[in-house]
């Protein structure tokens, strides 16, 4: 059993250099996406199928009326209770032993349920063309560099972060670091908080935010959509149970038919035989 890890992001140390975006593109071999000017230094409006992390630039007026420029590295949160995993009809999304949530591209059929149900809006569909020119889609998102974790290496974005705004390590150690940092910055940033939402069972990317989550464009209290819970935790098991019951009924019918029809002829054959005699 591998250790459960957390990526800890301290936005108060981020200087908005966007090296994390470059490192992600580089390691995951993701193509460039030319974008229109967003009205700020932010390069992409949000994460996309080919840009798995985006540095958000937020202009914020603080309680003193001063302008603050806030930065946030945004990517998949790797929820402990992931809505995407719950709604995926093909079981293409799963948890790894490290705590990351990953998509199996061979199983993904591009239905987009995960995209619709992610409370953080960090999954997107990429469109590809097969050799016959037919288009097909696959869900894509940050993998927390699970391929690197398997080799004992930290995620590419963390390694490249020069101000040390991102750290990676054991879950307990990272939570302790976040608590310690929060106590250090609370005086300077009275609204500072740790973003590790309980509504999704906690996440494997946690933040120390200087302001309320909504200031950073994050849901204050995200939770797994009820429809996802009903689908995964109730409908699917009941459906399987019903399927099992139906199968049992068919088998029972077959067996009873064989047992109680010892002549080896069914009614159809008898009737056909009767017809021929006539």
């Amino acid at each position: 059993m591998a250790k459960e890890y957390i990526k800890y992001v301290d936005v108060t140390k981020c200087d908005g250099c966007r090296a994390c975006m470059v490192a992600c593109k580089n390691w995951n071999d993701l193509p460039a996406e030319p974008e229109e000017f967003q009205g700020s230094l932010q390069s992409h409006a949000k994460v996309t199928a080919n840009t798995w992390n985006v540095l958000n630039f937020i202009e914020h007026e603080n309680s003193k009326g001063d302008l603050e420029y806030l930065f946030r590295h945004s990517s998949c949160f790797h929820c402990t209770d992931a809505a995407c995993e719950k709604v995926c009809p093909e079981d293409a999304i799963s948890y790894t032993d490290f705590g990351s949530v990953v998509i199996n591209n061979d199983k993904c059929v591009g239905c987009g349920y995960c995209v619709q149900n992610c409370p953080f809006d960090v999954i997107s569909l990429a469109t590809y063309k097969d050799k016959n020119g037919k288009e097909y889609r696959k869900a894509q998102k940050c993998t927390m560099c699970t391929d690197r974790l398997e080799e004992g290496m930290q995620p590419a974005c963390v390694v490249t972060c020069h101000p040390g705004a991102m750290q990676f390590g054991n879950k307990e150690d990272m939570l302790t670091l976040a608590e310690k940092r929060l106590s250090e910055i609370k005086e300077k940033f009275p609204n500072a908080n740790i973003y590790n939402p309980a509504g999704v069972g906690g996440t494997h990317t946690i933040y120390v935010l200087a302001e309320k989550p909504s200031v950073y464009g994050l849901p204050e209290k995200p939770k797994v959509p009820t429809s996802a819970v009903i689908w995964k935790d109730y409908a699917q098991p009941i459906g399987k149970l019903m399927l099992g019951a139906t199968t049992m009924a068919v088998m029972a019918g077959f067996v009873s038919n064989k047992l109680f029809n010892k002549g080896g002829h069914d009614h159809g054959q008898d009737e056909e035989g009767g017809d021929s005699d006539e």
Partner: protein
Amino acid sequence: MKTSVVSNEYQKLQEEIMKLQEQWKQNLNPDSIDFRLDSEAMKTGVPLVALTNFDVKFPLFVQWVDELKQLLMSQNADLESQLNRVIELIDEETAKVWMEEAFSFNHLYFKKFAEENVLDEWIPPFLAETLFRPYLQLLSEKTQSKISQAVAGCGCPVCGEPVRLGQLEGKGQKILYCPRCHANWPEKKLSCSHCGNEDYEKMKYLTVEGKPTEQIHVCDECKGYTKIIDTRQFITKPSPEMLDLKTIHLDYIAQENGYMVMGEIKK
């Protein structure tokens, strides 16, 4: 780095040996090492170990041999008779000689000892080196704050081991590590550890596809090489000897490309 050309069984054995050595080091009396920090001698490349007296306690030595025997036998029970023979052969004088010969890498002595006593050739030097390392590591621990550089071509400033391993740390600084005594010291990134060459046209980095943390710094002046690992990317940092072991494939690559562990220092 989880994948390695070294088998998991061997890695586990090495880790167990290191655990034992750490325990032994903890039990050593710090006064059992009497060193003289002669900066003038060290500037000429004399390793600190040559300026040190080790007070080897014989009962402790025998106890360590026995503990090591138990560990080795748990892996290979066939070694019992040879290891028992070693224990019979060792007396206080032999223990002292072993420590001295291990310090000076005198393989000829150990080869002769093995031949005379009908032992496998690897057993005496392996035991002596394993038992000597806690002393070296304690020496390195006590003097690390005074070690800030080494003389190119003279190996580790503490134990004299040839330089072969370095790590990238902090903002990318090259820190050389001795896998034998754990001493570490910084070195210019573009500098050969073996001949001190700083001509960038004669220094190259060999890399392995798919291994972003590994580099081999090679020097075309002396044909020496040093393995440089970017351990900043690792989740947990391995000890220098485990790192050296797990990157043994880099030694093969360097040597297959015509480079040598120590280089040829031109006069």
